[in-house]
């Protein structure tokens, strides 16, 4: 605990000079407490990695000098874990509530301006043909409550206020987030289908960007129902709902807006946010999008732009385990069959018999039963993980 000079109410003297001193004292105490709090909240640094590397190197040198096993194992482990800690240290993580603090004021102000200017209509997210570039996007908020889609010519003039129909044309709050989705997935949404979005967004939200725990996108005729649970944007969204009336349907929050932008790109049709609700426990968001017009069918992207390798890794772990398990089990099966048919061995001898001197033993007395166990564990665990992931991902229809 820090040394603090707590000031009791009874000690407060209301003389102006004393009050100034008391305030200064309280500020110092406040600063000390803040430092104490930071100490407890601090993020892991790379110091531990360097420390492990240092001691690992010393142990390795000692093991070579004294030709000893124990320091060699200790040294190799410490060096490896030190390097690993430096490799996996968090350099790009920020606290989730920063999102709310940095963006809520701007978002509320935009919505207040829209409300004060009497733009009552729902925000219409316009498809890429209304913008100059495919990475650009526009949301049109009409003055009237009826959804009137402006002509392409009117929007491409880059005017803020449109006359026919009357309304305001803004850059959606989630446009950059949509561009980031495309970058992470290595796909161009304008060349993708809605099915592709339904299958790829859950993986991106849960695993790639880690911004939600579950994600589900369902299509019913021209309505798209998106369910997101435990999203990092849920506090932002609920705060926006409290501060501004109709915030989600006109100039929506970045998350809802980004999905709307993605939907306009894949469908090539204007999209509106019909309804947005948050569950009572503030965990699940339900967003209903309405596609204005029929959905055109577009083929899957033939040439991905770029996809970070990390995105493939979880599947690769399962795939490697399943392949290894299958190979080991197949080999055990073949060996058993060979021993029974050629050498007339019984199963107990095949699985538990010593293989010393053979390559199978690896010089450490490994028997066939060990291969059977390793193969089974690898294969079964990968199958189990596969089903668990499919359940967790909540893929759309």
């Amino acid at each position: 605990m820090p040394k603090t000079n707590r000031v009791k109410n009874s000690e407060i003297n209301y003389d102006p000079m004393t009050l100034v001193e008391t305030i200064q004292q309280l500020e110092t105490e406040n600063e000390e407490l803040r430092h104490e709090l930071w100490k407890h909240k601090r993020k892991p640094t790379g110091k531990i990695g360097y420390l492990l590397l240092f001691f690992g190197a010393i142990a390795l040198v000692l093991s070579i000098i004294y030709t000893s096993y124990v320091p060699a194992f200790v040294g190799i482990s410490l060096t490896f874990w030190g390097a690993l800690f430096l490799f996996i240290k968090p350099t790009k993580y920020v606290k989730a509530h920063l999102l709310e603090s940095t963006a809520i004021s701007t978002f509320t102000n935009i919505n207040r301006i829209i409300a004060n200017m009497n733009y009552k209509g729902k925000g219409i997210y316009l498809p890429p043909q209304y913008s100059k570039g495919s990475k650009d996007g526009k949301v049109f908020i009409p003055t009237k409550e009826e959804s009137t889609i402006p002509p392409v010519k009117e929007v491409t003039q880059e005017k803020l206020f449109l006359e026919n129909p009357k309304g305001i044309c803004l850059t959606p709050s989630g446009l950059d987030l949509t561009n980031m989705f495309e970058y992470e997935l290595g796909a161009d949404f304008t060349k993708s289908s809605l099915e592709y979005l339904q299958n790829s967004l859950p993986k991106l939200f849960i695993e790639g960007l880690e911004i939600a725990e579950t994600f589900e996108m369902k299509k019913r005729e021209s309505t798209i129902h998106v369910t997101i649970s435990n999203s990092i944007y849920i506090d932002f969204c609920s705060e926006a709902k409290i501060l501004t009336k109709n915030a989600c349907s006109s100039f929506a929050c970045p998350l809802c807006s980004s999905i709307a932008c993605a939907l306009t790109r894949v469908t090539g049709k204007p999209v509106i946010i019909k309804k947005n609700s948050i569950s009572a426990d503030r965990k699940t968001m339900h967003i209903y999008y309405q596609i204005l017009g029929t959905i055109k069918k577009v083929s899957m992207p033939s040439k991905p732009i770029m996809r970070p390798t990390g995105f493939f890794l979880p599947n690769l772990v399962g795939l490697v385990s399943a392949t290894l398990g299958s190979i080991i089990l197949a080999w055990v099966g073949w060996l058993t069959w060979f021993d029974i048919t050629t050498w007339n061995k019984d199963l107990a001898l095949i699985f538990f018999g010593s293989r010393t001197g053979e390559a199978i033993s690896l010089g450490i007395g490994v028997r066939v039963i060990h291969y059977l166990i390793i193969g089974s564990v690898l294969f079964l665990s990968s199958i189990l993980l596969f089903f668990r992931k499919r359940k967790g991902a909540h893929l759309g229809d």
Partner: protein
Amino acid sequence: MQFPLSFSDIILWLAITAIILLATSELISPYYGKTNLLIDKNRLRLAALGVGIVFIVTILVQIYLMTPF
């Protein structure tokens, strides 16, 4: 002065490390809920796979060395 660990020792160490890393990378996957671990999980998975692959390669080398051709 020589390095005391033999090839078999390195294989054993690699096997244990690979199992620990693969299991950890799987357990901290976001599919099992938020884990509040402030580390780059993709990089951990990359390291786990790397160590696993190195282990498999060393096993193949060991089998090749012990097979009498």
